[in-house]
Structures are given as structure tokens and as C-alpha cells.
């Protein structure tokens, strides 16, 4: 059975791309998802993934109607993601996470409504392309998707290496960081905009379902039980990678989407983490 799978991988470009994407999405989860959970903003991930859907449908609409044939759906997805990030970042300038959640909620509704609205004006042949953003399939990736994922993962890794402390300081104490002379506002915007663009591009590549599955729950699970920033980052990578590999392997044995299985396992990791925390708590 294992030998069958290995020989299948070796001979199939589809599987090679899927495995490479699995590692890249785990890197994106470890860098982007982790800092969103630190910032108290895991909801931004779902918000941006849906905004990307709205942006992509706007792109398709502009192309289909001939208003702006150059307007690629990916461009729309990225613009909408940045819009959500800017709105959220503006709401959170004073450092309060609670206001940001409202901003995400409002832009989420706005872009999702726009997507559904535009669907009525699109030729029916284009609708599956919109749903592709939502469902996605790690077994149906093309080379552009892989390029997007490689670019996103590398940029995020670089950003985290350069500004990890700043992102952490902004998350803990934005006002104090500003008062000590750090440009906390600048790092706050940088962090949210980069995360949003990363989420939009990842959504385009693998679909929103997998994005929710591995960008939120593994980070939340690791943050419950691990005690340092670096160990949480590594923990997220491991949980995300394991969930997606299990999803891929599982999709061969039972008839189900790899993203759905990965999502179930990742969500389960959070529930397990909470139980572990409850048992090891010393009070």
C-alpha cells in the first residue's frame, strides 16, 4: 500500500505538485496564520478568503462584459484582500482587537454579497471559476498556482525573519511600542496587508476551504500549549503539514476531498490541544 503510494507520487506530476503545495501551504500557515492568532485576528483569514472570492468575481465580471478585459480575477482577489486588510488595520490602529473583528465582519459581508450579486450578471460558464476559489482542489493545481505559492511562502518567511520581534511587539502592546519610538502603526499595517495578500493568493491556489482548514486551527492549537513564539511557528508547520498529508492519503482510501479531511484533522488538533491544556494546568 505504502509502496503503491510512493510509486504513484514518483510517476505523477499531479501528486508532485500536490505534495509541494502541501509543504508550501504549511509554511504559509506557520508564518501568516501564527501571527494572525497572536494579533487576535484569526477571523481575518476567513474574511480575506471570502473577500478574494468577491474580488475574483468582480474581475470575471469586468472581463466578461468587456469593461476591462485586462482585469485578471487574481488582481481583483488581491485588491479586495488589501481592502479588507486596510479597513481592519485602520479599525485597529488604537490597538484594540475587538474593533478589528467588526471591520472584518463588515467587509466579509460586503465582498461576499458583491460576489453573489455579480454572479447573476456572469455567463453561467464562468460560475465554476468563482466556486473554484471557494472549494479548490490540491489535486488540480497548475504551474501558476505553484508559482504563486512559492512566491507567497518565500516572501512571508523573509518578512518573519526580518520583523518577527516587531510583529510580536505590535500584538502585545501597540501603544507602549509606539510610545517607545517604534513605528508600531507601520508594522501593524505591514503585517495585516502581507497576511491578506498571502491568504488571497493561497485561496486562489488551493481554495478557501483548505485555507480555513490549515491557517487558523493549527495556529490556535499550537498557541494553546506551546510556550515560545518559535515553538508555536514550528508547531503550526507540523500540524498543518500532517493534516494535509493525512488529507491527501485519506482521499485515496475514502472518497472525500483532501481539503475536507485536512480541515477535520486540523480542527481536531485544536480540540485536542484544549484538552491537553486542561489536563496539564496546575491549579
Amino acid at each position, binding site marked *: 500500500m505504502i509502496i503503491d503510494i510512493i510509486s504513484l507520487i514518483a510517476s505523477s506530476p499531479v501528486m508532485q505538485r500536490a505534495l509541494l503545495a502541501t509543504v508550501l501551504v504549511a509554511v504559509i500557515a506557520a508564518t501568516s496564520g501564527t501571527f494572525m492568532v497572536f494579533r*487576535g485576528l484569526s477571523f481575518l483569514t476567513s474574511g480575506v478568503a471570502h473577500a478574494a472570492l468577491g474580488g475574483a468575481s468582480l474581475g470575471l465580471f469586468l472581463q466578461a462584459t468587456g469593461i476591462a478585459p485586462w482585469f485578471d480575477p487574481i488582481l481583483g482577489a488581491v485588491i479586495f484582500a488589501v481592502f479588507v486588510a486596510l479597513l481592519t488595520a485602520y479599525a485597529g490602529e488604537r490597538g484594540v482587537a475587538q474593533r478589528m473583528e467588526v471591520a472584518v465582519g463588515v467587509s466579509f459581508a460586503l465582498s461576499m454579497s458583491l460576489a453573489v450579486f455579480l454572479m447573476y450578471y456572469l455567463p453561467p460558464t464562468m460560475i465554476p471559476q468563482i466556486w473554484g476559489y471557494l472549494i479548490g482542489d490540491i489535486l488540480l493545481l497548475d504551474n501558476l498556482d505553484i508559482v504563486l505559492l512559492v512566491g507567497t511562502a518565500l516572501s512571508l518567511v523573509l518578512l518573519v525573519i526580518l520583523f518577527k520581534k516587531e510583529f510580536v511587539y505590535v*500584538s502585545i502592546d501597540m501603544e507602549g511600542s509606539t510610545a*517607545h519610538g517604534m513605528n508600531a502603526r507601520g508594522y501593524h499595517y505591514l503585517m495585516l496587508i502581507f497576511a491578506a495578500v498571502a491568504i488571497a493568493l493561497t485561496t486562489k491556489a488551493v481554495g478557501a476551504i483548505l485555507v480555513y482548514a490549515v491557517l487558523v486551527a493549527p495556529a490556535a492549537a499550537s*498557541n494553546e500549549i506551546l510556550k515560545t513564539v518559535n515553538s508555536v511557528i514550528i508547531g503550526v508547520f507540523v500540524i498543518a503539514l500532517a493534516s494535509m498529508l493525512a488529507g491527501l492519503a485519506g482521499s485515496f482510501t475514502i472518497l472525500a476531498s483532501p481539503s475536507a479531511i485536512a480541515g477535520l484533522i486540523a480542527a481536531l488538533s485544536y480540540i485536542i490541544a484544549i484538552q491537553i491544556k486542561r489536563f496539564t494546568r496546575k491549579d
Partner: protein
Amino acid sequence: MSTQPPLIEAENLSVKYSNGDLALEDVTFTIDSSTFLAVIGPNGSGKSTLLKTMLGLLKPNEGSIKVLGYDAKRAYKTIRHLVRYVPQRDQIEHTVPMKVKDIVLMGRLLKKPPPRFSTTKDSECAKAALHRVGLDELWNQPFPELSGGQRQRVLVARALAGEGPVMMLDEPMSGADHDSQVRIVEALQEYYNENQVNIIMVTHDLNPIHMVVKDVLMLNRTVMGVGHPCAIMDLDLVKQVYGPTAKIVELDGHKYCITHDSGIDRHDH
């Protein structure tokens, strides 16, 4: 007389809340350096607003305020370089798994340019600061798991570990147990006596630091009084600021104010 510029110089300062209400109105006063200053007043009297305006976090609506001769509106970058700040406790998020040492080191690393590597000297200063608040043994402990009082002590240590001639603390004793309050006051007093430093502490209750501070600024949207602790404790004045139930008691030759607010843990927004 020193030729040094005053620590704070406010002239006709007015500041508005984001909802348009006036938080401070026509505030004019001067405090000379070096001092341990307590900024007191009831809830909503503009104490925190004054600190934030000095740091350039809020902009004056009218008038001006200078810190060590630097205008807070124009030269806020210079001021932030000189200041170490302890924000109100509800500004601190506990969503990141930081160790106590990471928090204390922030006081030094925030003043550096990226990548903000910590040196041996940074660690030594951070350890010494944690020792001052009596929490040496928590160096490697997770910050979010500490009690409210321990967290406040760590945040004070963060300020003590840093550098800069002005320390600003916004209600550093709020939410802290009695022992922690005593340790914070002792640590600040000790540090003030041993170093050339100015301390500005916003507090709703002067009594715990009555014996420690040199100057008191009493606010209630505008300046109600400036002076030494006992000089401020005038019955007519405290009744005017805190309401008719306020009392003055004398103990060992010092005057203390008792209000309905004393010892109750609340703060401005």
C-alpha cells in the same frame, strides 16, 4: 537654579476625546526636572490623556505641551526616544506566548533599530530590573500565566530596564495585589533615588505614594492644583474635585485624602 528646560511645560493646552468631548481644557502648568510627579484626579479627569499628549499619541486641540523643552506636537519622535512608558494594563494583550524575560527585554529592544538583537548588557539590565521588583525567579516563566500583580511588576521592570531620562507610568498599581503595590512603589523610589531620572505616575490614589513623590499635579479636566503632596491635600480643594464626601486625615504629620474612590480599582478610558 539649573539651566535645564522644565520637565513639563503646558500652555493653554486643550485636548479632545475622539467623540469630540473635551478631555483637557486650558491646562497651564510647569514642572521642573528632576522630579517624581504624581498626576492625580478622579476618573475621566484627563490624567491618561495628559500622558498620551506628552507622547504625541494624542494631538492638542489648542495650546501646547513640552517635555524637557521638546514640543509634543512637532518633536514627538525625540520625546519618545527619551521616554519609557508603562501603559494601562488593559492595553496589554496576552495572546502571544512570551516569557517574562522577553517582556522585560522589550524595554531595551524597542529603542533599537531592527533586527533588535539583545546583547549581554541588555540581559544584565533586564535581570537587574526584574530583581528590583522582586521577581528574579520568574525570568524564564510564561508572562501570560502570571497573576495581575506580577504582570504589573514585570511591566514596571520593563521600564526600569530601559534607558531615557523620563519614566511615564499609567496606573501601574491598578489590578495589583497589596504586596505587588508595595514592591512597585519601593522599586520606583529606590530607582529614583539612585538615578538621574524623572518619574511621572498617573494614579487615582495618591496615598500609597504620598511619601515618595516630590510633586503632585491634580487634574479635573483642567489644573486644580500643583505642589507638594501635603500642600495639595486641602479640604476645600479635594471636596471640589472628588465631591462632598471627600475627607482629609492627618497621620504622622502628613495629610491624606479619603474619597469614595480610594483603593477602588478603576481607570479612565
